[in-house]
């Protein structure tokens, strides 16, 4: 969890710095006849401080490239990234006088980009607070994400081996005690017939439902849902002789594991997908910020 008891000092520092910035900004904004601007010395100060915070936040990616470097724990850098990055937004807003600038102009683009980055960052923090706990509860068979495809191919092989074993089972001639109708009477179904019928049912179920479900890209299937899958397996179970039930249970476990891998993939994408917005946009923001600084200083 990114926000917990250990984050308290960072929250306090952030709140205090925000309060100080606001306390400085309000009298400054009131004193300006035409409203606050980024080119005033107060505005530039806010800009410098905000850019410093942004730069610090950016340094996290550098720190992650030199992991063994003893320049503070990665956790410390991450906390700094979250809280100072968040604080940079109001400070930059104060720099801009709480305005985004003319539509489609440089500052307009910068502010919107920054807003999207902050929002994606906040979403990321929320997801990182929620999703790991959810994964812990819902994915008892969680595996290494990169190995998912390998495990899926293992599951395919295992399932096909089980079905082949069932198909190779040669029933002995004999009377099927379980096939005697309720209330007595003589069964017309010999054990061998029951076995051969069961083999057919299991093979059909495997080919039509299980095999497609175990593919790397599983399509629409009733096995996707735990409840409908359980119902499907129960229905097949009633058509099988008792000796095949264990094999069916094994297949059901395999299907459950495959479903869990699919669920893990979704969770993984959720947990890391936001970075696809956050990271490139952050780099774009930094490049645009540099251009903005150069242009501002050049034409000030």
């Amino acid at each position, binding site marked *: 969890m990114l926000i917990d008891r250990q984050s308290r000092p960072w929250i306090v520092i952030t709140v205090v710095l925000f309060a100080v910035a606001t306390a400085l900004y309000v009298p400054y904004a009131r004193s300006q006849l035409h409203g606050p601007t980024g080119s005033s010395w107060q505005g530039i100060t806010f800009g410098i401080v905000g850019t410093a915070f942004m730069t610090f936040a950016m340094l*996290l990616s550098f720190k*992650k490239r030199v992991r*063994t*470097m*003893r*320049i503070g*724990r990665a956790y410390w850098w991450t906390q700094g990234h979250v809280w100072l990055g968040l604080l940079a937004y109001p400070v930059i807003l104060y720099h801009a006088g709480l305005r985004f600038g003319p539509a489609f102009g440089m500052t307009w683009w910068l502010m919107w980009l920054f807003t999207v980055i902050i929002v994606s960052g906040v979403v990321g923090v929320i997801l990182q607070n929620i999703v*790991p*706990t959810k994964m*812990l509860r819902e994915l008892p068979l969680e595996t290494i994400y990169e190995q998912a495809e390998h495990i899926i191919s293992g599951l395919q092989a295992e399932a096909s081996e089980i079905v082949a074993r069932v198909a190779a089972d040669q029933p002995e001639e004999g009377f099927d005690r379980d096939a005697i109708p309720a209330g007595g009477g003589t069964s017309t179904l010999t054990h061998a017939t029951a076995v051969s019928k069961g083999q057919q049912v299991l093979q059909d179920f495997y080919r039509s439902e299980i095999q497609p479900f175990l593919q790397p890209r599983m399509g629409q299937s009733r096995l996707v849902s735990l409840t409908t899958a359980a119902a499907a397996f129960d229905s097949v179970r009633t058509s099988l002789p008792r000796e095949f039930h264990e094999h069916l249970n094994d297949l059901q476990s395999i299907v459950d594991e495959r479903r869990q891998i699919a669920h893990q993939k979704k969770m993984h994408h959720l947990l890391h997908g936001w970075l696809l917005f956050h990271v490139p946009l952050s780099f774009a923001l930094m490049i645009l910020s540099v251009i903005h600084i150069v242009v501002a200083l050049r034409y000030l």
Partner: protein
Amino acid sequence: MNAPAKMLNIRIDGKDHTIPATKPVTRTIVEGNSERSIEVQVPQTIYDAAKSVGVEIPVLCHRDQLNVDGTPIPQAGVCRVCAVEAAMNGRADRVFVAACCREVADGMEIKTQGKALNGVDIGETRKTIVEMLLAEHPQPCTRHREHRDCELELYAEKMGLLKPNFTPRAVSKGTDFSNPSIAIDHSACIVCERCVRACAAVENNVIGRMGKGYGTAISFDNNKPMGQSSCVNCGECMVACPTGAITYAGGVAPTPPPNVTPLVTDELRKMPTLGRFFKAISPNFLKRSEGAVWVRMFKKGEVICRQGDFGSTAFYIDSGEVDIYIDVDLGHIRTKNNGGGFFKRMTSALFSKDQDNRSEERDSKSIPIDSSGVDLEYGKLLAKVGEGELIGEAACLNFQPRSATVRAASDDVIVVEMLRNVLDMLRKTREFRADMERKYRERALANHLRSVPIFKELPDAFINRLRDRVKLVPVEPNEPIVKQGDPADAFYLIRMGHVKVYESYADGQAMVLSYLSRGQYFGEIGLMTAGGVRTANCTALDHVEVVRIDKTDFEDMIRLFPDIKSKLQAIADARLAENHARATQTRTLSLPQYIEQGLYIAQSLLILDLEKCTRCDECVRACAQAHDGITRLVRDGLRFDKYLVTTSCRSCRDPLCMVGCPVGSIRRKGDLEIIIEDHCIGCGRCAEQCPYGNINMHPIGKEYRDEATGEMRQQRKAAVCDLCTDMCLTENEDPACVYACPHDAAHRVDGQKFFDELLIGSRAVQEKIS
């Protein structure tokens, strides 16, 4: 102390003898899904007693050396060829008794030949029995025709019964050729039930009797053709059969490698060196195993086998000399801080024990290898062995990698290469065993004993004395060697295989104390302390051979050499103290999962708080960055509560990584940490064995050309987590994996301390809820 065996006074053929009332035999017992062998005392039979005093009684349905995997097949007493007279107080039994079944009693008078008390000639009676059996038997049967070793016909020839007086059977009892590799001739069967018992001994239980009277015969699965029965073709029945009733039919021979011509049965039996041993094996078995033995010739410099390869064959050096060597840089991996200020990281390098002596580093200079005669030494990684030596026995029997490379040292090297089934059968023959034992005593015992550091100073005189007194004891897989609580009566040195040492507790739990391999020893604690009682169980994990030094010799040794005594005493005390500490830890804990996962015993666990971990793998990358790009950590493992106990060495209670190391280079230190000795050959067996994937193979050191594939390869060494010790500035500083975790999810903790607190917390919560 062993209770003294009860002695019996008996008279055999007029001579008085005093013999023990019982003899030890091995029995297999099944416990749940596992089985183990135990030694039990059974009453001596007349046959055993006579044999022990040198009186031979002929037997046919019984064969005392008949066993399956070391478990003797019980006697049946159905053929009556061993008929003898047994009398008590001058009164004989009404009929002659079967010597193989009848137990001896105190004061018994036994007659194996000559006139019985009732005037009947015992030899003639026996002759009549053989004659009657012969009447039902084709003469010669398939076996006698091909190999001249049908036991019934050999007896008949010995007794001069060339043609029985009884009318032979008019109608054949039939044949069964439904099995592709085993042929059944019911006419040659004397229903001795050896096959039935052999089949039952391997728990197949396919063969039984059918019919009655004249029509009695053996049957498979209640009279199915053998080929359609549940027979698994193990061939034990064929090996057990004394006649030509069950013979090899060809068809399912082992597949030899290309470019070799396997030897056929006759060639095997005529071999100048090994021939006499093959003659002691059933020709049926040899026939069935044709393709499992072949001869190869090597010129000087040619490689016979390579270290680290898996092989299913053993090599008998028929002539010439070979070099055995391990091609490896001696040393262990040490990751060292190479400076660089903020940008510092560690680099790995090989250090020998002289350069970097780790705590509890073994001071042995001996490297155990898979050869009957030699071990290697640290200063000299090459040994020469010659004619009559067996190499690769452990790799063949126990499926472990080759411990060394073997190369022809002369131009005339002839090697007999054999597959496991033949080696296994050879080892069961008395002649081969005696030969191997003799060579071991003559050539290897002294070196083997001196390879143990505490015995290094033993003088030649004492070793010579031991040479004739020690016993080489083969032990089958899962067979107990010593049992906790038993009186200590011997000291053991391991010659081959792996031994598991474990303590059993009253609640049914067991704790593995150690796995021992070639060159290691056990049994000294019971002999030196604890009132002469075994303090732990020692069980063979695979095919094991131990050198047994009896208590009296051991006591002489420690009496004559006080220095050895004091060293052994120190080791015994230290082992006892460790065992006691572990037992105390175990008894204080309750949660099975906690114990099963070995969390309580781990000195330094890397745990990931899964409520915080975002699966970013920064810890893994940091570990790789700190160790030359090779991670020693995988973000996977067992879960306990909300924690993932990741795969980095955790000093388990059952360190399976130690099982199967062909050179015994991985072991546990006193503090349970794993240490990999310098002579690791990089075969990767420990990495495969570790159930948690905590051992990594680190490419390091010299490169070499793989002669099999022609590719360049780099030598590898096994490595476990080093906690980045050399990179941390202070003792309390975090290793790279923890330091690089951006979410404070990774922690290094002391297993017992951390989880005890957790358990106390959860118990408190549970109590509140209840």
